[in-house]
């Protein structure tokens, strides 16, 4: 490895070194790194709680925690992972770094608001951490009423405030992305020349802006009912608990797409770069992001089939749930068609992309089981649901996040990581993930309910397998932390375009200068013009 030639030219990292230059930065790339560090902290906190859950479930008896403690442990796992890792992970780190670079802009439209969004996120995180340290919260990440307003005596309001505050950070980011993509594209960068990651970020931003206020208000209403006993959700005060579920899932189903749409955007970039082909049916893939964003708002009642929701509403929501599967399937089919006759190279980022394809397929298809009115009654609130959404959110979002982080790491840091270790980690994560969550499909189908710390003895073998898988998965997530940090000092210098990829971000230096491009680029080609590129080099 060539470690002697450290990059000497000025870039966004070495341009200033003081703490102030980082904490008051308006550079989208530096803010992306701030986000990268803070979401990683929450990933570790959430992961620690996951570890405790799997330890408790190693044996049928409740020997590690009291039932009440266990309730807090899985709640804090969910809150940390969903609101403070999965939702911001790709948009706020990769999105922040890449959206301006990909469209040939100097920065986002509102750099100060971008910095503000990070501080808002940190403030929300601190509120939630205060709740965790102060004794925790036990409502589940969904804060269902009437338990959350009338019964729970844990830190519901403090945690809710944390989630409420951090919601504004995703609204600010979303609004910044939308304005930037509308107004700051380089000359020649038409809508249909945009990389698919930018389309996905645009669709994600729409959801964040339109949905987040609703969940924020729902949480405020929970707080008002707890403190002032205003009857909104509690039946004894004249409220209706099912109304809470409507408000909560109006955002929280689309929130799944806030997590997975940017992941799909990353996968489009990876597949194009490592097959050296244009994405098959570019326009269909682009518009399917918008279709998912819109139709995703019509399906929330599939979480409520066993509540008192009317059978008629259930029917409508079930139909629409099947409908939203179509644009997701369009993407998967088009990626597969892109692989056909591509010159595929199996580098680490592409291994993550393959992992995504397999896991998202299983997660998506089992979602159809749950969308069915009849079958859902059998598996509702069982480990089948837990396995399903982990396949979508962990198997989908985190695979793509890691794939993207590896792919753009040379651009972000100027250094290459160790390819062998990266491939090994990708493999471990894939194996560990399946071993953790596949047994949970079986457990759920057999009737093991979620959120219990004890279970009958006949389910122990599958639970032990799941815990063993979680251990492998945990180690798999830890390895990249080591070699990525190692690469910062000792990694081979990457050069501007180590993958030979198309895209404006690869045409500027690594790491880029603060203004991204010395001269504003002019775009003359569609995205993924690999066919032209081969001709040029031939």
């Amino acid at each position, binding site marked *: 490895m060539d470690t002697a030639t450290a990059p000497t030219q000025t870039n966004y990292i070495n341009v200033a070194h003081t703490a102030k230059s980082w904490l008051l930065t308006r550079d989208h790339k530096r803010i992306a790194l701030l986000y990268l560090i803070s979401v990683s902290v929450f990933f570790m906190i959430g992961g620690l709680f996951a570890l405790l859950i799997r330890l408790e479930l190693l044996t049928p008896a409740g020997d590690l925690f009291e039932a009440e403690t266990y309730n807090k442990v899985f709640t804090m796992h969910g809150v940390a992972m969903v609101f403070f890792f999965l939702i911001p992970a790709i948009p706020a780190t990769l999105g922040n770094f890449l959206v301006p670079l990909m469209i040939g802009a100097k920065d986002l439209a509102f750099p100060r608001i971008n910095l503000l969004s990070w501080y808002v996120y940190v403030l929300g995180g601190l509120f939630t951490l205060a709740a965790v340290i102060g004794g925790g919260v036990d409502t589940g990440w969904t804060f269902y009423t009437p338990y959350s307003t009338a019964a729970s005596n844990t830190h519901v309001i403090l945690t809710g405030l944390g989630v409420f505050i951090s919601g504004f950070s995703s609204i600010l980011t979303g609004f910044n992305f939308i304005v930037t993509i509308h107004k700051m594209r380089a000359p020649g960068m038409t809508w249909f020349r945009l990389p698919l990651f930018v389309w996905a970020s645009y669709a994600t931003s729409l959801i964040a802006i*339109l949905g987040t206020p609703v969940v924020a208000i729902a949480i405020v209403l929970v707080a008002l009912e707890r403190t002032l006993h205003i009857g909104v959700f509690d039946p004894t005060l004249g409220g209706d608990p099912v109304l809470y579920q409507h408000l909560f899932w109006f955002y929280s189903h689309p929130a799944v797409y806030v997590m997975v749409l940017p992941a799909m955007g990353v996968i489009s970039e990876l597949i194009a770069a490592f097959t050296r082909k244009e994405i098959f049916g570019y326009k269909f893939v682009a518009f399917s992001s918008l279709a998912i964003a819109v139709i995703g708002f*019509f399906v929330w009642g599939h979480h409520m089939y066993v509540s008192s929701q009317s*059978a*008629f*509403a*259930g029917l*409508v929501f079930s139909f629409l749930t099947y409908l939203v599967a179509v644009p997701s399937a369009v993407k998967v089919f088009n990626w597969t068609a892109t692989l056909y006759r591509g010159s595929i190279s199996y580098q680490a980022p592409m291994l993550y992309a393959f992992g995504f394809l397999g896991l998202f397929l299983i997660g998506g298809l089992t979602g159809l089981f749950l969308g069915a009115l009849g079958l859902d009654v059998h598996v509702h609130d069982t480990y089948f649901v837990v396995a399903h959404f982990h396949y979508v959110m962990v198997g989908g979002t985190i695979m793509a996040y890691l794939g993207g982080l590896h792919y753009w790491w040379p651009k972000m840091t100027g250094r290459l990581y160790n390819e062998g270790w990266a491939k090994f980690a990708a493999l471990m994560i894939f194996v560990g993930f399946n071993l953790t969550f596949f047994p949970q499909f079986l457990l759920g189908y057999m009737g093991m309910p979620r959120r219990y710390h004890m279970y009958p003895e006949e389910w122990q073998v599958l639970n032990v397998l799941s815990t063993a898988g979680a251990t492998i998965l945990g180690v798999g997530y830890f390895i990249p932390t080591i070699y990525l940090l190692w690469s910062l000092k000792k990694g081979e210098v990457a050069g501007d375009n180590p993958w030979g990829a198309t895209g404006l971000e690869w045409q500027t230096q690594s790491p880029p200068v603060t203004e991204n491009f010395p001269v504003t680029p002019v775009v003359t080609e569609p995205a993924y013009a690999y066919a032209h590129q081969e001709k040029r080099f031939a």
Partner: protein
Amino acid sequence: MSDHVASRGLYVAIFLALMVLTAMTVAVTYIDMGNANLFVAMGIAVTKATLVVLFFMHVFWSDRLIKVTVVTSLVFLVILFAFTLNDYLGRGALGVAGR
């Protein structure tokens, strides 16, 4: 936003209209119109909100992108209300016991 000059007279007129509508909001609470109560009250409220958004928030003079943005957010609010009401008003519609 800078390409229009709304006259002071228009702003005053809108303000007076809002005051009249507010007085009407109070007045109609003294009249029992049965099922129409809700619709009359909501009708007045929506008219007021429309005036505020169009004139005080300058949407009337804004370009198409801003108008599309405003309409889109309203459409999503309608989705929230319509599909929630589809549950409450649809209970018992299919003859399933309790649902």
